[in-house]
């Protein structure tokens, strides 16, 4: 597993999302971690040292795993960029169901049209 700085991690995550549009999934895990081994943690505990925790972020597409960590000072900037990436790539989710059936039917047609266009574009590439 590669531990990256937050910004390169976000770039890699973006490319994972871009490469998994036709098939495959992306997993992102958040975990509170001290980034130290259990042995070291135990030593620190017995020495009475304060163990510092960070938020460990791991991402995988099933082939490759990347990770990074953010602390109390820099997590807000990271979570804002992360939210932007998710918003930009989670485009396959359904919009709220409309009460007006005619409108939703039109929207479906539009979606189909754009799908065809995008798949045609991909085929030509």
């Amino acid at each position: 597993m590669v531990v990256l700085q937050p910004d390169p991690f976000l770039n890699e995550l973006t490319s994972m999302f871009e490469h998994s549009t036709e098939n495959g999934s992306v997993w992102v895990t958040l975990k509170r971690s001290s980034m130290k081994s259990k042995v070291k943690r135990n030593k620190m505990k017995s020495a009475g040292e304060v163990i510092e925790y960070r938020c460990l972020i791991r991402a995988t597409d099933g082939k490759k795993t990347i990770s990074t960590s953010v602390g109390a000072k820099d997590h807000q900037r990271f979570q804002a960029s992360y939210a932007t990436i998710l918003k930009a790539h989670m485009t396959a989710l359904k919009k709220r169901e409309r009460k007006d059936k005619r409108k939703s039917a039109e929207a479906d047609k539009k979606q189909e049209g754009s799908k065809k266009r995008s798949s045609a574009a991909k085929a030509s590439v």
Partner: protein
Amino acid sequence: MVYITSWDDFAERSIQLFRADPESTRYVMKYRHCDGKLVLKVTDNRECLKFKSDQAQDAKKMEKLNNIFFTLMARGPEVDTSEVAGKEQMEQPAKKGRGRKQ
């Protein structure tokens, strides 16, 4: 293992699970673009809470939960998360303030 259907129930229970054991609880998000599906999982390796959706509005709710978990994990489980949503709103006018300095 059953999916929790209510978002509020899932969010509340997952935060409780994390607070009960911060060191072994993880929060996983799985997104499958080709099927348009989103699955969230919170587990401490004993109990497992899952939520799935194909709705864009749930992605917005997830963003808030992401922020709560980032805050809890980076700052500590004692931190009050009730102000997490409020902070974002406060940041925006602050940014405007910086822009006006000409």
